[in-house]
């Protein structure tokens, strides 16, 4: 779980764009702010983390 840098689903405004993750965060994890993702807190344990691919420049 360590070494997670940037999640593909993590929008610039802090929201999680993974529809599946949001449902689990709401129902299973009982998170009141389930739409928001805080990298330091949420990345290590998120089952839906997906490393954002690095697109080569040029």
């Amino acid at each position: 779980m360590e070494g997670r840098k940037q999640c593909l689903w993590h929008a610039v405004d802090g929201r999680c764009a993974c529809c599946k993750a949001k449902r689990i965060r709401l129902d299973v994890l009982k998170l009141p702010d389930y739409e928001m993702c805080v990298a330091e807190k949420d990345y290590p344990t998120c089952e839906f983390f997906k490393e954002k691919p690095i697109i080569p420049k040029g």
Partner: protein
Amino acid sequence: MNMDANTEVWLADLDADLRKKKDRSDTLDELFQLTFLGDTEIRQKASWCVAKMGQNKISDMRILDILAPLTDDEDDTVRENVAWGIGEVAGADIGDERSIDSIIKLLDDDVTDVKGMAAWAAGRLKHKLNLTNKHLEEKLISLSDDPSEFVRKSVLFALE
């Protein structure tokens, strides 16, 4: 069928519409075809779109008609989408014995993500539709000490 450019664009447009919560149930018949004619990537995307319609509360039995046969798909992302979609569409009052049969199978999945999502879906069937049975309850209880925290927490939700 491999993902050609037209199919890729069509699925991407549909994905965008569904994220905006547009009713695109007009595409369900095409999606149905893609789930059995398409390659793995197509089936992943098509099953996601069908499940997303469930989340958008489209009350259409075809959602379950499409998802249920994908329970045995060889790809774990497709199977996870089946569990997710069955759980979501329960919120639109769609679910029957096929939902339970699929979820019982997916609770036996080798892949943790599929199993965890199936446990969550079992909870949705129970909480939204009062749909469960003894076999499903026993299966959930047997997963209470699963090595995965995700599975255990989802089971707790299902047994609430």
